């Protein structure tokens, strides 16, 4: 009886702590995927999985890190499932000239959001976990399941890429990459014409 009460209490604590972390999970999911709706779906999948696996969570340990780990694993799992990826979402494709001077204290957040899409998923997650999520390098390496040095180098490379993308004087700046989306669309369009589904439709 006492054990059952204790379990109920632990579940209740787990649930309330999980609810308190939803905003952080949403933020992580949003910055990882770049799509609002996809991010919320990902977050809900994470909550459902976390609840199912609550037995494997040890009370008193870092619940935030545990949930973030589930979320990023789910993100990669979903990504592997979808054969076609969309690197930009509609709002990202505006062709405005970024007006950022990385040396100044002013930063256009829309430009930074667009620049984040230039990073690999691994670089972006490492940067977000440490730069915004409040995790240490060690915690980030545990969440991502990689070595500490790997996290450090991913963050360093991510920051270099962002600096270059946002620096209007640099050849790799965002404004000089505007045609990348079009080129990718062309390639994907050609791939689609080669797919069996397309072949059946035109048979």
């Amino acid at each position: 009886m006492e054990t059952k009460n204790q379990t109920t209490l632990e579940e209740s604590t787990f649930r309330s702590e999980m609810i308190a972390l939803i905003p952080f999970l949403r933020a992580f999911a949003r910055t990882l995927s770049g799509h609002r709706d996809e991010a919320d779906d990902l977050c809900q999948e994470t909550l459902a999985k976390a609840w199912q696996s609550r037995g494997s969570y040890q009370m008193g340990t870092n619940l935030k890190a545990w949930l973030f780990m589930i979320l990023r694993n789910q993100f990669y799992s979903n990504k592997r499932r979808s054969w076609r990826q969309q690197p930009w979402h509609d709002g990202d494709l505006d062709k405005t000239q970024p007006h950022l001077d990385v040396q100044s204290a002013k930063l256009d957040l829309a430009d930074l959001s667009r620049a984040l899409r230039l990073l690999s998923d691994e670089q972006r997650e490492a940067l977000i976990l440490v730069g915004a999520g409040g995790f240490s390098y060690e915690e980030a390496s545990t969440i991502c399941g990689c070595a500490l040095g790997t996290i450090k180098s991913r963050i360093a490379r991510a920051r270099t890429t962002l600096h270059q993308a946002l620096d209007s004087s640099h050849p790799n700046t965002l404004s000089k990459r505007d045609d990348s989306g079009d080129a990718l669309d062309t390639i994907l369009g050609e791939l689609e014409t080669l797919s069996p589904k397309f072949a059946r439709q035109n048979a």
Partner: protein
Amino acid sequence: MKKCRDGKSPTDAPKEAKQKGQTGTMQPFPNSDGHVQKDVIATGLKKIFDDVVEEAIPPEFLALLEQIDRKSD
């Protein structure tokens, strides 16, 4: 051990940072002159993240948890 002008060894800085709990977080980049400038990218990143954190939780999230609760009962 080689000492700096202020009498501290090069390994003192990381130790001091650790005591202040400063390890494991991104440190700002020094520029070519060696001066550390305010890291606008880190600040912007935090702002993007915090903006989502401050959003109200959509009702479907709470509905999902209630649904999970009902299933587990």
